């Protein structure tokens, strides 16, 4: 398959993840959608790496995976802390910084 198929697939997955971030109120599903978006970016990196024959794209994808793991750990810890203090994981109900 040529490059544009991979890019279109990555764009579709990115859009699905973006809609999840915009539509869902559950903080856990919002974080899962962010993981989907990061994966779509990885797919684009790897497709361009294959297109140009450059291994640097793989190294960047490796860093993206490491950063996503760190983000998941800290984000889930924050979700647990919010649930413990407020009993809610809906992103709309957490507005202490706004008020």
């Amino acid at each position, binding site marked *: 398959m040529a490059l544009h198929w991979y890019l279109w697939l990555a764009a579709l997955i990115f*859009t699905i993840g973006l809609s999840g971030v*915009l539509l869902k109120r559950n903080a856990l599903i919002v974080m899962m959608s962010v993981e989907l978006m990061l994966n779509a970016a990885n797919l684009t990196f790897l497709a361009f790496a294959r297109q140009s024959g450059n*291994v640097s794209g793989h190294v960047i994808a490796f860093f993206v995976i*490491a950063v996503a793991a760190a983000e998941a750990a800290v984000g889930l810890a924050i979700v647990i*802390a919010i*649930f413990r203090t407020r009993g809610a994981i809906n992103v709309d109900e957490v507005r202490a910084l706004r008020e």
Partner: protein
Amino acid sequence: MTITAEAVIFFVFAVPLVATALGVVLARSPVYAAMNLVAAFFCMAGLYVLLTAHLVAFMQVLVYAGAVMVLFLFVIMLLSLGDEHLVAERKTVMQLAGVAGGIGVFAVLVTAIWQATGLELIRRDGLFPGIDLSALFAAPSWAAVKVDFGTVKAVGSLLFTEYLLPFEATSLLLLVAIVGAVVVAKERI
């Protein structure tokens, strides 16, 4: 237009990938969403192998489908949410606006890819302009690569020479994330 084995394998992974990604967003329960996400990660790993990115595909299964998803499932079990948390959705106006925004972003991305890859689908040589779909399924213009492209040896040698400083910074980032997660999540230190 000939159907190659690569095209068949691409769609074998791409169609379930889109379906499970939609499942993540549309699932009612976070557990179902997490299961869909695991399947999506596996399909994505298959596409990585198709792009001869063996090491990254392996890391994808190991780190994402393994470690990150176990973390997600642990948190889902730990929170033990009632049903009232699951059915709460945004207002309909917000949902429509979100879907419209998503479709708009997708349209922009598809157009940008269309222009960047230089696809020519409209035939102008004949008497009437027609649509020529063969450019869509043309053979890929991949660069010729060596046998060790995407293997541990090739990626590792680049990682420990040219990208040594970002690599060390990543280790520091992971350390900070570990300490931060413990500090935030623990009730009393």
